[in-house]
């Protein structure tokens, strides 16, 4: 975070998200991948993926289990670095900057690219501490009051404020599954990321909690670029503007969501969305 470039980038991102309310349909590319390959030891898990993800919209990655969609998602904030024996080639650009540049600080990247995991994983601490942790370690708040303000705003954006405002000191792990996942989303947006990655965020939730999260994703896209991995084609159809279909480590097809679901160009996409495999 001592890198002045990083700070200015973060500030630029923050000011942009603050000043542009309910942005018009975005066209600018936020994330672009060029010929990304991932190897887990000998296994070639992701084969030459290239994709453009537009700004302030929801992009869904769909595909059968083991197709590489989660692997690719975890490349975008370099979470794969933590896996022993994992190797990534190619480049991923966020606003033109390669995140696999050796000079790039991973910590700074993860402040710009937040992540929500498959299983709700709040810290075993209070609700307040869960949300304030990110801003605290990045030094985003100068005072306790400012920190409280960030926590409140994040919880409001995550649609959780009304439910927890009277018990911010309670442990985050005591919430229901859906609330926990919204807490994790609040935690992610508390550091004002530009991109939020969601790895099957609803797979551990019941339909009502899922609906709430989907609504939330729809609201968040006004300010954030969201990439969501999902097993549910209905969910992809409901929440996303772009869809990318992965199969056996290949990016088969990408395009506007209506187009993918109505007139897929590739036979494999056709087979998958009509339920012939998966």
């Amino acid at each position: 975070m001592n890198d002045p470039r990083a700070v200015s980038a973060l500030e630029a991102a923050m000011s942009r998200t603050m000043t542009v309310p309910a942005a018009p349909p975005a066209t600018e590319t936020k994330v672009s991948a060029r010929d990304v390959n991932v190897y887990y030891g000998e296994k070639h898990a992701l084969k030459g993926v290239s994709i453009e993800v537009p700004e302030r919209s929801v992009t869904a990655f769909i595909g059968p289990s083991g197709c590489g969609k989660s692997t690719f998602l975890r490349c975008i904030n370099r979470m794969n670095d933590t896996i022993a024996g994992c190797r990534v080639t190619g480049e991923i650009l966020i606003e033109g900057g390669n995140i696999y540049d050796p000079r790039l600080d991973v910590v700074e990247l993860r402040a710009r690219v937040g992540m929500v995991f498959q299983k709700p994983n709040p810290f075993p601490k209070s609700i307040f501490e869960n949300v304030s942790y990110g801003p605290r370690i990045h030094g985003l708040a100068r005072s306790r009051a400012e920190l409280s303000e960030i926590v409140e705003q994040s919880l409001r954006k995550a649609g959780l404020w009304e439910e927890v405002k009277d018990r911010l000191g309670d442990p985050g792990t005591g919430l229901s599954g859906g609330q926990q996942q919204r807490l994790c989303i609040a935690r992610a947006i508390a550091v004002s990321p530009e991109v939020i990655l969601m790895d099957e965020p609803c797979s551990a939730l019941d339909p009502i909690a899922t609906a709430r999260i989907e609504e939330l994703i729809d609201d968040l896209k006004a300010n954030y670029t969201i990439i969501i991995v999902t097993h549910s084609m209905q969910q992809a159809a409901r929440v996303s503007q772009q869809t990318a279909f992965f199969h056996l480590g290949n990016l088969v097809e990408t395009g506007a969501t209506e187009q993918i679901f109505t007139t897929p160009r590739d036979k494999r996409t056709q087979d998958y969305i009509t339920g012939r495999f998966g």
Partner: protein
Amino acid sequence: MTATDAAAGPGRPSASPAAGKVVASLRRRHAKERNFRLFGLAAVILGLGFVAILFASILVRGVPAFWQAVVVADVYFDPAVVKIEDPPVREAGESDAAFEQRRLAWETRVTMVNWNRLIEQALLRLVPDGEGKSRDLLALVSSSERYELRDMVVADPGIVGRTVRMELLASANVDVWLKGNIDRSLPDGQQALPAATRAWADQLRADGAIEMVFSRWLFLNVDSRSAPAAAGLAGAFVGSLYMMLIVVLLSVPIGVASAIYLEEFAPKNRLTDLIEVNINNLAAVPSIVFGLLGAAVFINYMKLPLSAPLVGGLVLTLMTLPTIIIATRSTLRAVPPSIKEAALGVGASPVQAVFHHVLPVAVPGILTATIIGVAQALGETAPLLLIGMSAFVANIPATPLDQSTALPVQVYLWQGNELRNFFESRTSAAIIVLLALMILLNFVAIVLRQRFQRRW
């Protein structure tokens, strides 16, 4: 379950061969389950039984040692016997060393006083027929009591000329005789005490002049050869305390830090595999080997003092480290990786993720590991024998560099003492103290674990 089965029975094709096989196999499976449970229960009962026998035998033998015979007597500090001048007073312009020298000379003169004569006079008042048998009379009282009288005079010289009612500690042989730990029918030649002393002891006990009181000597005194009745655990206790302190101060930071590094940060390669295998091997090395290592490295090479709790603590630290590292690593491994991922996901550095999130969750486990390791070290004897801690030490160590023994070593020493009748129960009493300390440690571990777990 069986009721619904029976009710549903006729309605479903239970007569099918598969269902019959299931029923037949069920019987076999249930029998297996029952047998296994019985076996487990039997094993638990057997184990508990042995523990009960162990504890019962230690308690039965050791508890009587917590009470010791004392002769309640009026001791007259006869000025005719205690012929000493007033203690030296510091003169103006006298140096510290010169005054100290005069003071020591005075104390030496005080020690030379015939204190036994005072004890003899006090006892004669209880048993007038002891006149002229001073040897037999003095055998009633522990030889440490004359120093007790001296210390009283040194502390307060004004006591001379007065009569003080005192509990004079009975000698070990009298204690043994009165507790019935020696065969009373043995002929005189085989008895440790003269016939007259034995008769007086019984008489005084019957008169109530000899009482059984709680043995403060066991806790306040150091080991003693000349006055076995006054032998205590204080020196060994303090020695063990110093060693535990050193073990905790060294092995916890080093062990936990190594465990965190190996588990969370170290690259997984041949070298770290080798380190891991060796740590596991070290945990299995017999403790006496650590004693040899300590003797070779700390005493022969580094020239640290023999019999010192510092060296004992270092050796026990070496022995405890693998235990703490292995247990801490398994605790860290049990922390769900999702917590660490979550921290990394919001941009925590790996060190922040571990110290802010993984470690706090692992603290209860680490505490347990530490206490197990420390308790193990507390009871360890073999390595201490090799670094000279089995020597007879009659002082409470003032620093970890002074000579000392340790509680388990004291048990070993008393166990081998030639005065079997007396030290058998003394040994069991020392074991009780050691076990009580262990139970206390475990209790602390449980309390700490509960406290830390409740926070989340």
